[in-house]
Structures are given as structure tokens and as C-alpha cells.
């Protein structure tokens, strides 16, 4: 064999904390932390035999030395509800690290927007740690139930928007740009689809690069099942149609490459 065989690993839960309504902060000990980069994800397998498929969860923080991964996720169904019950010293099955990650070299020395909306905020933390750039961190929340804003504040100027206007700018991350007359050379973002569409449009109007992290229902997580595809401008390399695989060709795409 010319390739090393990879496998699911068993990680140990270090701690778990509820950090906002339905949002949990799970820290696990695993060697995967050594290879994890910003924008990549791990597939976490619920123990219950009723919930078969792994849940793709973004890397919020990776501490290579301590072999620790920090996963911040929202309860979205049975699987994530199970994860939220895990306590220190429990074990969890993880496959990874998966996906391409953000092309941090594209931001080196430049003025960059890190834009996170809702449960798209967690990957911004590892990204903020890795980027050597002028970082403006734009975060969108529903209401005053904020999370990770202090962690992110260590790495750059944080701007907050809330949908109900209770904290910061009323509206979303795009309203932050307008309200503060901000500008950037490159954008890196993760969040709900309407936000990513607005960013794609904004970046095209400004003529700047935007790297957006997409989400889709996944099954295998390794590029075989073709469940999690995204329409692309160019013919994709795998199926030679216009459907790239989010799990392996992404999840991060240059906004112009994808039709969202």
C-alpha cells in the first residue's frame, strides 16, 4: 500500500460546557488536533445505533501540543442532543480531520474580514489564531445570547450585530460593514446561506476574494456518496458535472466558484 490507512479514532472528552442557548463547547483529547487547520471539520459519531451517520462539526480550536480539539456546536437534532450529554472522561468516536480548510495564505499580510454568523462563528476562532493579517472580526447573532466573542477579541477587533438589535449593530454582519464603513482585501466567512449569498454578492461588487465555508447534509464525509454537493461555476474534478463535493472539495470555496 502506498498510503497510510486512516481510521476512526476514539477521543476522550476533556470537558463540556453550555455556552449559550442550545450551544455547547466540547473539548476532546485526540491526536487529530495535530493536523487540524482552520475551516476543517471532524465527523463525530453518536453512540446510539438509531443515529447512524456522523455529524460534521467544524474545528473551533486545535491545540496541537495538548492534543486537544475544541468543538462548539448547536443542538440540531438527536445526534447533537446526545453529544450535549457527554461528560469528562466519556469517549467519542471521531473521523477526521476532513475538508480543505481556509486558504490562510491568501490573507497573509492583508486586511481581512472574518465573518461568522450563528453556528458559523466557531471556525472563525481557529482561523483568527492562524491568520497573520489585519483582522476585523464580524460576528452575527440572533440576540444578546453571545458566545465566543471574548475568545475572538484576543485576535482582532470584534464587531457584533444582533438580529434583534440588543447588542451592537441591529441586523446582520453586512450591516456591520455599512454602519462602520469597514473595508477589506479578502473575506473569510462561515454562516447561514443568506449571509453567504450576501457576502458573495458584496465581494463580487467590491472585486475582492471571499472564501466561504458551506454546509450541507452529509453521509459519508469522505467524498464517496455524493450526498453533499454544491453547484459550481466550473466542471468539478470528480464527476465532471457542476457539482463539487462539500466534504472533500470544500467546505471552503472561493465565492465566485459556487452558485449559491
Amino acid at each position, binding site marked *: *500500500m502506498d*498510503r497510510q*490507512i*486512516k*481510521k*476512526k479514532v476514539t477521543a476522550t472528552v476533556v470537558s463540556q460546557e453550555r455556552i449559550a442557548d442550545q450551544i455547547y463547547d466540547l473539548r476532546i483529547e485526540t491526536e487529530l488536533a495535530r493536523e487540524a487547520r482552520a475551516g476543517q471539520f471532524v465527523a463525530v*459519531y453518536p453512540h446510539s*445505533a*438509531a*443515529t*447512524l*451517520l*456522523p455529524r460534521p462539526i467544524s474545528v473551533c480550536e486545535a491545540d496541537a501540543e495538548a492534543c486537544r480539539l475544541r468543538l462548539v456546536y448547536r443542538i440540531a437534532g438527536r*445526534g447533537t442532543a446526545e453529544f450535549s450529554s457527554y461528560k469528562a472522561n466519556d469517549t467519542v468516536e471521531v*473521523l477526521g480531520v476532513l475538508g480543505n480548510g481556509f486558504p490562510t495564505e491568501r490573507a497573509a499580510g492583508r486586511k481581512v474580514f472574518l465573518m461568522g454568523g450563528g453556528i458559523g462563528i466557531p471556525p472563525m476562532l481557529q482561523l483568527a489564531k492562524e491568520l497573520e493579517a489585519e483582522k476585523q472580526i464580524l460576528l452575527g447573532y440572533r440576540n444578546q445570547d453571545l458566545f465566543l466573542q471574548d475568545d475572538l477579541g484576543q485576535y482582532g477587533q470584534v464587531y457584533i450585530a444582533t438580529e434583534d438589535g440588543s447588542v451592537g449593530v441591529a441586523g446582520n454582519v453586512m450591516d456591520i460593514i455599512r454602519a462602520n464603513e469597514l473595508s477589506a482585501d479578502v473575506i473569510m466567512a462561515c454562516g447561514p446561506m443568506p449571509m453567504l449569498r450576501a457576502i458573495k454578492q458584496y465581494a463580487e461588487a467590491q472585486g475582492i476574494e471571499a472564501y466561504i465555508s458551506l454546509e*450541507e*447534509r*452529509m*453521509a*459519508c*464525509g*469522505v*467524498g*464517496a*456518496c*455524493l*450526498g*453533499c*454537493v*454544491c453547484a459550481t461555476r466550473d466542471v468539478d474534478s*470528480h*464527476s*465532471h*458535472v*457542476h*457539482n463539487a463535493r462539500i466534504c*472533500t472539495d470544500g467546505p471552503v470555496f472561493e465565492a465566485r466558484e459556487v452558485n449559491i
Partner: protein
Amino acid sequence: MNTQVTIAGVTLQNPVMTASGTFGSGMEYSDFVDLNRLGAVVTKGVANVPWPGNPTPRVAETYGGMLNAIGLQNPGIDVFVERDVPFLKRYDTKIIVNVCGKTVEDYLEVVERLGDEPVDMLEINVSCPNVKEGAIAFGQKADCLYDITSQIKAKAKQPVIMKLSPNVTDIAEMARAAEAAGADALSMINTITGMKIDIYRRRFALANRTGGLSGPAIKPVAVRMVYQASHAVKIPVIGMGGIASGEDAVEFLMAGASAVAVGAMNFVNPRATIEVIEGIEEYMRRCHVENVTELIGAVEE
């Protein structure tokens, strides 16, 4: 201990294959599985031209199973013979190519293109529930199945496996039609048509509304159909449907399958195929079975 089985003259080192559509052409899973250990790799369906597949969401989890409506996205036969066949040839395993099409001519074009390729068998997908034209339409009426099977048999240079749909009234009738038309083997079951609704959003979970159900939830249905079909025909049956362990595989063999395939469980455990192979060997040791073929149809009537 002998784990070899022979299907239509092709000898597999063990009875464990991959189920079409769950394993790509092996490339992605070769990071997790030594493909040399598999009885055969059954590829994802390939058509005469690239197919883009269905809109997303294409997959949804259900209790103990999953629905998919991928819609047979595939790169077409040109890319397949240039990229996927040479990749698989590097491994010491049998290559079974799953063929799909919208018309009989589409199928025949792919079958003819594969005639001179180093592939061991063809599996004809007349049972995908997720594409509007072709596919399942050929697999739900016995006369249509007979017709397409005979036409494919007339052109195919490799043994032909007809992959049957469980979405029929009488699986035995379908099995007999395929056998009468000259099929060399049968594989079953393809997925069972299902539906899931997100009640809070009042939306279908899949963009295609319906999808194919697979995973452990469907195993008893699959075992029953393998039993019925294998007792209705003389040609070998390849059994699949929720196989997760060596014990599950042995159950299919006892029901009458001559080989088995692992499908959705690859997503749950990338090493599922290897664990099924090891599980069969473990069963054979524990139950003093010298030859795996002793297990085929071994359930006491």
C-alpha cells in the same frame, strides 16, 4: 478455512463486496480500507454520459437507517474507464461495474464500452428509485426486466448481475424473469422507497421528496427477499441491505445469498467491509465451518 465463493465463474477471495453507490470507485475509501482484502469492489453507477444528479438535500437520516436521493451523479463512462478502472486494477480484488441508464440504448452503450475493459462483472441497475426516467422503470415489471436483461446479455462480454428492486409485489417473479432472460446472477435489495417530513418546517427532508431507504432498518426485508428470490431461481443471489457485521452477512448467506455487499454501513464505519470479513471468519472458527459455501442456504427449512 476457505472463504472463497464463485459467482458466474468468477472466484472471489471472500463473499464480501461493496454495495454500489456507497463506496465510489474505491478511491475515497482506499484511505481507510485495504482494497486488496475485499471480495469485490462494486462501483457507483456509471452511465454513458455524465449525470449531475438531484438537487440537495440528497440525504436524510432516519431511525436506524438513511434515505438518499443522490440521483446517480456520475462522471460518465469516458472518465470512468480512464480514471476509475485503472485505479481499481492496481488492487487484487474483483471489479464489478454498476451500469445505469435512462434508455435501453444508454445501458447498451456502457455495456459495450466495458466489453474490452479489465472488469470482472457488470451489475445492471434497474432499481434506482431516485431518477425519473429509466432505472427502476425497467425493474418493476417482469416483462420490461426480461426485455432489458436479454438485450444486455446479447451484448455483454462479462457476466451480468441484475440488481433488483424491493419495490415490487413479487420478488420471486422478478427473479425468475431475469433468470429466464439469461442473467448470470442477481443482487438485491436496492433501496426501499421512503419519505421523511420535517414537521417544524413543514418540508420534505429531501429535495426529491422521496428517497431510497437503506441501513440496518431494512435488513429483515432484505433477508426475506433474498430468501424468496434465491429459492425461486438457480442463479446465485448477492444479498445486501443493512449488513453491519459478520453475523448479518452469515444471516444473508443462510437465507440463500452466495455473496453479500456492505452499503450504508460504510458511512457509519469506514472499515465496515473489513469488519464484516473478519466477522464471517470469526463465525466460521467459532461454529467450525470449514468452507463458507456450506453456509449458503443453510437455514433449516
